[in-house]
């Protein structure tokens, strides 16, 4: 099956071509089923690959063809099949399949449905390329491809202005990150002479290059990762990306594209481990982002924005794990997060669909009775997010916090713990506002109805994943996934498993913090003690800052966008006045010259005859002068 690994991206690519070329006229609604079938087939092959890798297959490179061969520089289109990429393949294809099935219901009434599935299929293709690549350059192809599809899909409903602006913002911020990525891979080539992962890691072992170069590479790559994975400072595109259809938010901005940054760092672990300070930066940025985003999520009223900031926060956790030397924990959390966050988004989509595209939670309420399946699956997902045992999120998040505390980062670990509490608080708040209490908009409530089966079945499937996925990581640090991933993400540092008592203590601590968050949240929103509005009034300054998302968007707009606009204005002025001016003056000079020279053509024959005689005069004198030696022989 490993030899067939190229079928995995081939199916979505074929789906993209079919839906794109034939979707508008002939296939229409059928595009959804075709695309879903294609991704389903990919999932089957991916599972087969995973089974074979689990069965003990060696790390394999499956080449397709030689892409670039110029002098010393050669890059192949080849797939690297090892535990890490096998896990990613399965996660991407399985979650994508469920979301594709769901989208058949959600996008059924949209007139652009063929476009949706074409681009979604292209996205899956690009993501798979990213995950399967055996070198940085091919990965970059996938990297750019997912960025492009993100732009296309965020701006899917481009008839309205907001999606268009959001798509542009996402793409530009991605691009800024890509600049970092490009610098990183160019430096990799300059230092190691190759862009191939295996070559680079081998040469890293053989000859230790300069620390400075390594740190540069790692920081540049991480900067690219912050763009893709929405960490500080390039995170603000993700909440705006919620303008896209909910399945897009679920797939791209929860489960797959935003995890490519995590995957990049995990894949480059040998490099990061060798450049010591880079990992510290990763951990720090991840932690700060985690708590930063969690605080904003506390006060948002748009249900999708709550989920978006939650995603940013959880990604911060993954980077924290990578930074403290627990990459297996990061990938573990990536897997569990894919399930429960996708579920949260799809459930939100179900709610939005039921409430006739209303997204403001203040107008919802009491939907528990109307949307039972959605409610229960979202409760499961919310519990996983809040890291309640025995749901999947508990195992993965607890491991991250534990790794931070035991690997010598107590402060980061404590912040992670605190953020866990905030997470529990905001997700409880969101669920309560949507599903419990009195319906705040009666006529919207009247028309709410549960979604069709094509939408609820994926919810149930994802819920099962949210419950069971934790099993691969039990017990902490010694579970299946740790040993499985070890060859891929080895850092070269041997770790001792912490004593059982420590593990239990940390686990207990995180559960307590989560429960505390839930209790406080329920107390505020269910009982009104203290009343949320009163709290907001009392801490008005802080509240306003949080609601306005720390004014980051305004800051960026003022510092960067205005500067860019000024520069563009200056360049435009230069173009108009200097360059065009030069061209215009030149043309004017020619015209003037013509106007002057035209006066020679008087039309009077006598003048022309005179000119002939004058010419004769000139010739005769010239000849005479030459003959007389005046001009020298």
């Amino acid at each position, binding site marked *: 099956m490993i030899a067939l690994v190229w079928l995995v991206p081939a199916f979505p690519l074929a789906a993209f071509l079919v839906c794109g070329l034939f979707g508008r006229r002939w296939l229409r609604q059928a595009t959804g089923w075709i695309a879903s079938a294609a991704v389903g087939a990919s999932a089957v092959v991916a599972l087969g690959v995973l089974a074979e890798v689990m069965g003990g297959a060696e790390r394999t490179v499956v080449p397709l063809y030689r892409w670039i061969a110029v002098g010393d520089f050669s890059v192949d289109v080849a797939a690297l099949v090892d535990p890490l990429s096998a896990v990613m393949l399965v996660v991407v294809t399985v979650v994508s399949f469920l979301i594709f099935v769901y989208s058949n219901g959600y996008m059924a009434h949209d007139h652009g449905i063929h476009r949706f599935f074409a681009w979604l299929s292209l996205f899956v293709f690009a993501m798979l390329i990213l995950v399967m690549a055996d070198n940085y350059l091919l990965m970059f192809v996938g990297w750019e491809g997912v960025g492009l599809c993100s732009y296309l899909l965020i701006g899917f409903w481009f008839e309205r202005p907001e999606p268009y602006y959001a798509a542009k913002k996402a793409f530009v911020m991605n691009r800024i990150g890509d600049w970092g990525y490009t610098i990183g891979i160019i430096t990799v080539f300059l230092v190691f002479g190759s862009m191939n992962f295996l070559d680079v890691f081998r040469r890293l072992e053989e000859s230790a290059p300069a620390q400075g170069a390594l740190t540069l590479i790692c920081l540049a790559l991480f900067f690219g990762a912050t763009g893709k994975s929405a960490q500080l400072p390039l995170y603000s595109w993700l909440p705006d990306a919620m303008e896209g259809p909910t399945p897009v938010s679920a797939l791209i901005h929860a489960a797959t594209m935003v995890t490519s940054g995590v995957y990049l760092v995990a894949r480059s672990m040998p490099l990061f481990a060798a450049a010591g300070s880079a990992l510290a930066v990763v951990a720090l940025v991840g932690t700060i982002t985690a708590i930063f985003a969690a605080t904003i999520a506390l006060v948002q009223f748009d249900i999708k924005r709550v989920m978006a900031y939650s995603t940013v926060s959880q990604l911060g956790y993954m980077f924290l794990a990578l930074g403290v030397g627990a990459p297996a924990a990061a990938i573990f959390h990536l897997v569990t997060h894919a399930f429960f966050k996708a579920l949260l988004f799809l459930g939100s989509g179900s709610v939005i669909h039921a409430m006739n595209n209303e997204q403001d939670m203040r107008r919802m309420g009491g939907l528990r009775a109307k949307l039972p399946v959605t409610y229960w699956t979202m409760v499961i997902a919310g519990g996983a997010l809040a890291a309640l045992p025995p749901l999947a999120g508990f195992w993965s998040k607890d491991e991250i916090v534990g790794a931070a505390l035991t690997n010598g980062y107590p402060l980061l670990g404590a912040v992670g713990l605190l953020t866990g509490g905030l997470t529990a608080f905001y997700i409880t708040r969101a669920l309560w506002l949507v599903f419990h209490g009195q319906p705040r908009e009666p006529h919207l409530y009247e028309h709410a109805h549960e979604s069709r089966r094509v939408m609820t079945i994926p919810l149930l499937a994802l819920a099962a994943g949210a419950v069971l996925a934790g099993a691969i990581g039990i017990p902490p640090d010694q579970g299946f996934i740790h040993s499985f991933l070890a060859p891929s993400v080895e850092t070269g540092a041997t770790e001792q498993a912490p004593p059982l008592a420590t593990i239990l203590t940390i686990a207990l601590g995180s559960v307590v913090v989560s429960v505390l968050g839930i209790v406080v949240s329920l107390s505020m929103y269910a009982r009104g003690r203290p009343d949320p509005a009163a709290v907001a009034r009392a801490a008005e300054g802080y509240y306003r800052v949080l609601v306005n998302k720390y004014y980051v968007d305004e800051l960026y707009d003022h510092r960067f966008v205005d500067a860019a606009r000024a520069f563009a204005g200056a360049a435009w002025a230069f173009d108009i006045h200097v360059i065009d001016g030069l061209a215009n003056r030149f043309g004017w000079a020619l015209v003037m010259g013509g106007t002057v020279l035209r006066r020679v053509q008087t039309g009077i*024959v006598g003048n022309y005859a005179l000119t002939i005689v004058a010419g004769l005069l000139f010739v005769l004198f010239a000849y005479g002068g030459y003959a007389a030696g005046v001009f020298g022989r």
Partner: protein
Amino acid sequence: MIVPLGAYIAVSAALFFIGCAGVLVRRNAVVILMCVELMLNAANLALVAFSRKYGAVDERGSVFVVFVFVIAAAEVAVGLAIVLSAYRNRAVIDVDEIHQMSG
């Protein structure tokens, strides 16, 4: 005393440049044509003089003169035709008045 060759050439030159001045100075188109004929005559004289005054007679100069006659006749005929049709159009014979082809 023999008339030197140079005298003939001098006469030819003088007549040629008189004709040239006439072409440049006169405004009546017919008169311009007359002055052109003067110039052609001067050329003929020079040709014949040179053909007869360098030892043996070189009849090629005379042959050339015959052809110059032909050309001159053809030229004056066509020239007058042009002048007449231009006159028919605009009833002016003054070449200074005909300047529609100015730039």
